[in-house]
Each structure stands twice: as C-alpha cells, then as structure tokens.
C-alpha cells in the first residue's frame, strides 16, 4: 500500500535535459514551452537488474520565458536498492534546475520544423542516499549540459542528442561523470493525423546510450566501475489538448559493465504524465 501511494503521488521525469510532454520518453529532443506556458510532468522510471530494482519518481516544472527559452526544475525521489550504474538518461536522486534554449528554429512548411535546443543545468544531491557502488559516496553538485537537434512534422519525427554531466569532487569522493547520447525516430500514421480536438498518438523507436566514468572513493578509483551501455525500445505518446501520457520500455543492445559490481541490468521502463497550461495572454493592440 505504501509503495502504491508513493507511486501514485509522485512520478518521475528522466531529467531536465530530456524531452517530456511533446517528445520521446527516454531520449533527448528539442521542444520547449511556449511563452508563458507552464508545464508539469510527473512519472515513474524503472530500472531492473540482477542485483535489484530501482524506481525513480519525481516531478518536473517548466515555464516558458520566451517562445525559445524555458526554465525548469526537477524534484525526484528514488525507491529500491538496486546496484546499478550511474545514469543521467534516467533520474537518480539529484535535484536539478536549468534552462533550455531553442537556438535554431526553422519552420519550413505546414507542420514541419527543424530545430536545435541546448540545455544547461545545475545538479545538486537530493536528501536520499544512493545504493550499490554509489552508496556512501560524499556527494557534490554538478553541471549538466545537453544538445539536441531534429525534425518535427505531421508524419515523422527525428531527433539526435547528447549530454554530459560532470560532478565536483567531495572529500576525495567523485561520482562518475556521464556522457549520454540518443537517437529517436517517431511516426504518426496517416489515420491518426486528425484534428486537435481528438487524441493525438505517435510511436517512437528510441536508441539511447551512456558511458559513465570510474567511481572515486577516498581518493582511490574503484576498478571496473566505468560502464558503457546502449539501449533500444519502443515508446508511445498520446496527447489530448493540454494533457499527455507517454510510456516506453528499453532493453540493452550493448553492455560493457562489471557484473560483480552492477549485475546485469536488463530492463528500463518509463511512464510519464504531462499537463500543459498555455497562456492566453496577448498584449493589447
């Protein structure tokens, strides 16, 4: 019952740099909020491996300062004690805040956009301790940056992106810096290219990858703690006016990680709920 309440009350979004309401659930994408648009995302993100399962939940808030600049904040919580590698594609226990800037925005035809978005944020340790090899590490704030580019249209979507998170050292401990990347293809069948007063569905194939550096504990590098993994899986996004629900699963297609430290992570899944509050404000003439 306790778990159910926890899950019902707080859901997670992967992290500030990742797309949510308009895009894929795992990957980097370009959409930002409209001017004065307030967005709220909440979801659950799960990682399952041979050494345990970890659920992350939390809430993300975004506000469009301009049509191209959105500020956001992410407040997560984690449950479960799996010994899993550091990840920035999925949320951990870090709180974060940042800004996304859609610096390229080219509208080429009805329904079609080519755009690029850069995000920069601060990551700070939350109140929860990590588990596994990361447990007991002195934690320090970090900086996260990402870049995504791609195409959005009525029929197809394509985005590629990458991100890097670097943590500061604290008392000779250092969380692994993380390099992550993603590529996603989305498709909306002709039958579903309907009016905006009907549910809007699209499907994605999401490929994500991460490389995490070594864990530093008391000034000594933990041997074999660096990891590289690539994940692939489908996701679906459904939107009706100002609400969106998305979900997806991923399985590993490549994994280079120590089994003795991390076990074998074999599944990631996510469910995300979004509410978009658009502004009706316009200046007087």
């Amino acid at each position, binding site marked *: 019952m306790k778990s159910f309440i926890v899950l019902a009350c707080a859901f997670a979004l992967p992290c500030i740099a990742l797309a949510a309401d308009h895009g894929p659930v795992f990957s980097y994408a370009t959409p930002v909020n409209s001017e004065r648009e307030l967005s709220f995302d909440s979801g659950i993100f799960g990682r399952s491996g041979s050494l345990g399962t970890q659920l992350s939940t939390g809430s993300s808030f975004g506000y469009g300062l301009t*049509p191209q600049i959105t500020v956001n904040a992410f407040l997560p919580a984690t449950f479960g004690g799996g010994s899993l590698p550091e990840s920035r594609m999925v949320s951990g226990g870090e709180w974060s805040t940042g800004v996304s800037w859609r610096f390229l925005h080219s509208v080429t035809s009805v329904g079609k956009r080519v755009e690029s978005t850069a995000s920069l944020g601060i990551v700070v340790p939350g109140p929860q301790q990590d588990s596994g090899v990361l447990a007991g590490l002195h934690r320090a704030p970090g900086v996260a940056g990402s870049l995504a580019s791609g195409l959005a249209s009525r029929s197809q979507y394509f985005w590629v992106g990458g991100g890097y998170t670097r943590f500061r050292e604290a008392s000779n401990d250092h969380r692994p810096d993380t390099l992550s990347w993603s590529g996603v293809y989305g498709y909306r069948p002709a039958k579903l290219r309907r009016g905006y007063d009907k549910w809007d569905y699209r499907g994605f194939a999401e490929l994500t990858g991460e490389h995490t550096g070594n864990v530093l504990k008391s000034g000594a590098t933990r041997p074999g703690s660096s990891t590289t993994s690539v994940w692939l899986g489908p996701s679906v996004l459904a939107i009706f006016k*100002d609400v969106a629900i998305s979900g997806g699963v991923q399985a590993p297609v490549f994994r280079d990680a120590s089994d003795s430290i991390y076990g074998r992570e074999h599944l990631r899944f996510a469910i995300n709920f979004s509410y*978009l509050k658009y502004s009706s404000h316009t200046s007087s003439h």
Partner: protein
Amino acid sequence: MKKIIAAAFFVLLPLAAHAEYEQVNLTVFGMDCAPCAHAIHVSMKGIEGVNTVDVDLNTGLVIIKLAPGNSASMRQFNQAVEKNGFTHKDAEVIVKGNLTGTANAPVLEVSGTSDRYALSATAANLDIVSLLGKTVTVVGVIPQAPKGKQSDTLLYKTITEVR
C-alpha cells in the same frame, strides 16, 4: 465649441465602431501536433473580441471569427502565433474600415485599432473612387510580414460599401 465637438464625436462614433475585422484566416507554419493547435486556440481565444477559433493541423489554417464591435488588431493575431514558436504566413481577411487616401493610393483604416493598409487590387477592373470617404467591407489578403512586424499592404479581391 465643446458641445459641437461632443456632438460630432457621438455622431461619428457609430461609424467608427463599424471598422473591425470580421474574419481572419491565418496560415500558420510549424504546428505538428495537437498541443500546438491547442496553444494557438487558447492564445487566439484570449484576444478580446474573438468569437470562435478553428485550427486545421493538416493545412495549418487558423480560422478566427470575431464578434461585432471588436477592436482586435492584426498585431495581436500575429503575436499569438509567435509566442507559441510558430510562423504566420499570409492572412485572408474580411475587414470593415474607412476608405481614405486617393484613387491612386487608397488606404483602409481599421478604426479602433492602429491598423492601416495601403490597398492594392488583385483585379484591374475594381473601381473604388466612388467609395472614397466611406465605410467599406474588404475581402483580401494581408501578405506575410517578417517576425515582429506587420504588413502595411492589403491585396483586396472585393470591396463594397457598408450600408
């Protein structure tokens, strides 16, 4: 003197109130999904005087119908598009206004707003000399303006006197 000015004001007021946009069919580029259209709908409905808004995602056409007596301006419609990160293209309009200027350089003034258009005929045989100084209904196209700007030209297809 004050009474004359006041009397003139109240005599002219009903004429001025007729000058307004009746319908704006605005083509918008960049909307790919339902929330995009919903955002445009919300923004357009937030403009005072807008009665109904219909958005067609597949054609990018946003049809705005306005209430009589409104004072909504083209700048507001364009701004509603830009704030959502999209691009406005040509707008087909049905607009009432006061026809001023000269036969060679007619001007449509949409009183109640700051909108003022140099009129240009899309057909050669449209004679508007007899309409100068009158309130008219114009059906035409306002060409796309650069972002943050407003077109000062209206390519009219028909122009008729408001009776």
